[in-house]
């Protein structure tokens, strides 16, 4: 956990005011070396109340939900509703590059900390506001959780079988898509600042970020004026579908080299009519997808799935096994690339494996600089070192519940 080469975003200071819906955004920047200060209400962020919890014992410093999104950040508790708290925040804003917030639209204004105020305090500051529906429009004040956002973003409707209820996407995809767009927007604003010296206010809509992640739905509408249907496990492109093997499921793919796939299926005596020349054309396989997958399902049903995958990949067929996420922890590829990293929690005397970075930057390597913070862990040091708050003043702020 020692710092050798600085991260790619070393020198960037981010104040993270987000609640549980948007905290991946600042984590993405913290992972690249930005100094991210998570500002929590004195009672702790709402994410700390969300499970799962370490050993199933709920406690604000044992939330794995909080841990996942707050690795590499520092924590400062501050009551923004208190005038002294707001003052301290403004002092921090002067030396910050970025503020990220996910309050209901208008909340920062009510706190006297709206864009005009922050911009006056620090004209170079980038403010990123992440709200369910953005800062404008008739739904601006509506509320939503991830499931409702996947509904209103068109993502939920296209999962599952047509004659049954839609199936909810796994893994808070509306929140995560929004966080990615937030980090991208922030970097774009920071690069623009290199030319103009001016900060900007980013208005990000989570509904739009969700809709953007299922582009084929809108594209299908603009191309054919139709609503994309639910198709079970058939991918909208019609080149992928789940099939059942002897001991589990696999993902078929008909975009690889067709000749070698069909040679293999034929050698097992299961090709039916798929060796007809028409099927050499991807467009014909597209049109005949249901039939093609029926034949291929018959072919794979007696195969053990790991054997099938190994042989498919040897032939450069883009097949995959349908695995549980537990399999990632035993995956040879991820192990070789060091995807999971051990993070020490000294106060617990334990180490845990966290998912790491999805990329290797050869010049500015990814690394864990700190485990997720305990609530308010860095309040004292930040106020003392950055704002030169005297010890007596710190004690007073603490007694008054401001920090």
């Amino acid at each position, binding site marked *: 956990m020692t710092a050798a080469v600085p991260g790619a975003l070393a020198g960037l200071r981010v104040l993270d005011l987000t609640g549980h819906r948007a905290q991946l955004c600042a984590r993405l920047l913290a992972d690249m070396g930005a100094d991210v200060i998570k500002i929590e209400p004195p009672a702790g962020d709402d994410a700390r109340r969300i499970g*799962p919890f370490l050993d199933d014992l709920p406690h604000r410093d044992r939330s794995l939900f909080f841990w996942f999104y707050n690795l590499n950040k520092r924590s400062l508790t501050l009551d923004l509703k208190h005038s002294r708290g707001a003052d301290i925040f403004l002092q921090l804003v002067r030396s910050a590059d970025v503020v990220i917030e996910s309050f209901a639209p208008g909340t920062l204004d009510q706190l006297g900390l709206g864009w005009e105020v922050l911009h006056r305090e620090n004209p170079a500051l980038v403010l990123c506001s992440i709200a369910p529906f953005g800062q404008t429009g008739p739904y601006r004040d509506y509320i939503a959780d991830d499931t409702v956002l996947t*509904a209103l973003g068109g993502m939920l409707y296209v999962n599952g079988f047509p004659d049954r209820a839609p199936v909810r996407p796994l893994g808070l995809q509306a929140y995560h898509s929004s966080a990615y767009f937030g980090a991208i927007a922030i970097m774009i604003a920071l690069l623009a600042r290199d030319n103009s010296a001016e900060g900007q206010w980013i208005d990000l809509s989570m509904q739009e*970020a969700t809709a953007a992640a299922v582009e084929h739905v809108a*594209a299908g509408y603009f191309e054919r004026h139709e609503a994309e249907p639910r198709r079970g496990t058939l991918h909208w492109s019609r080149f992928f579908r789940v099939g059942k093997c002897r001991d589990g*499921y696999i993902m078929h793919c008909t975009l690889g080299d067709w000749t070698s796939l069909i040679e293999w299926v034929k050698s097992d005596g299961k090709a039916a009519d798929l060796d007809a020349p028409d099927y050499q054309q991807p467009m014909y396989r597209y049109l005949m997808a249901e039939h093609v997958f029926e034949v291929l399902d018959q072919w794979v049903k007696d195969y053990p799935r790991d054997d099938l995958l190994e042989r498919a990949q040897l032939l450069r067929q883009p097949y995959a096994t349908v695995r549980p996420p537990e399999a990632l922890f035993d995956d040879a590829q991820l192990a070789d690339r060091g995807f999971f990293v051990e993070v020490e929690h000294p106060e617990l005397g334990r180490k845990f494996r966290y998912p790491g970075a999805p990329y*290797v930057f050869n010049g500015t390597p990814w690394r864990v600089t700190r485990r997720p913070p305990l609530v308010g862990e860095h309040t004292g040091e930040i106020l003392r070192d950055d704002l030169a708050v005297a010890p007596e003043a710190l004690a007073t702020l603490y007694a008054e519940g401001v920090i």
Partner: protein
Amino acid sequence: MAAMPLEGVRILDFTWVVAGPVATRILADHGAQVVKVERKDPPPMGNRKLGLQCDLHRGKLSVALNMQHPRGVELARRLAAGSDVVMDNFSARVMRSWGMDYQSLVAVKPDIICISMSGLGHTGPNSSYVSYGPTLQALTGYTQLMAEADGTPAGYGYSYADMCGGYTGALAALVALWNRRRTGRGQFVDLSQFEAVAAVIGPALLDISVNQRQQQAPGYNSQEGPAAPHGVYKCRALDGDNDRWVAIGVRTGPEWRRFVTAIGSPEWASDQKFRTLYLRMQNSAELDANVSQWTATRSAEDAMATLQRAGIAAGVVENGIDLCERDPQLKERGFWPTVSTAKGPPTNVTGIPFKLSGVSGNVRSIAPEVGEDFDYVLGELLGLGKKERDELVAEGAVWT
């Protein structure tokens, strides 16, 4: 007019299919000049003038270089020398075989940034695996955990993995550019799309590694703290369409009380078994059946409006027509911008989910046909005269 945020940044773009084009499209939307290097006959993916292919390649330039021809490679290397970032989504060997990998390009441009967005990364025992978004979703657990109650995989009409890979690629390019402006140094980014989608499964990964808990398909159980009712509920048909649903999420006590009032305080809601959040979770099947009785009597739009007025998270499960035609919020915010086409009527595309208070991104043009920008790229960017260009075409180094 003020400059676009990424004006002056040039991307040499070797990416194809979905993930890579998503990454470079985001950069193009914000003013980067993206020069797409393609084969003469890329695999047919569909019409570039509307729909998904237009979305993916809009605002880019296209040049068709023959990378099997030494002079085609030479042109690519000269383009790289004048670019800030080179992006690809091939496996490691492809760019190396052309002499277009980071180590080779540093010789022509010392501060070049190279971003390779391969399926499983450039290193490791499975780095040569061939993959697409749907297969990566299968390998990481998404497909298995998006199942019906009986365990039948039911999920994934789309490629979340491609989007995660694309966003991660765009972010990596922007971060590397920011870093280069401060240090003067470029770098090589080896991005694994497999890892990009694995990284965002979320807290469930820690539940596995920390608590050793085997993950079950969550169905509609809330993944952000307990909630009940929480799920989708069938609504009245709309214009003969019987596939109408509303998503609802109720958490706190005050929310529950507002919810009950909003649906007209039915008798069942005062039953002891729904008194607390814990009890509502325990008896969620019965609760869901009761809620469905209420939603069945009204349209999804009406259910949403009634509940939102009461401060309850609720939303129509929007299909493509709802999304692009009916949703008043997306319309009001201009999320489906209109782009003009050279021939034929203008078309609409998916917009950009964020606005900047200065100069926002915008969709500048529809996607180019393969090789459409031959004259500009070779003439303007590389300064080659007509005679030389004709020669290169005649030699088969470049296609028009």
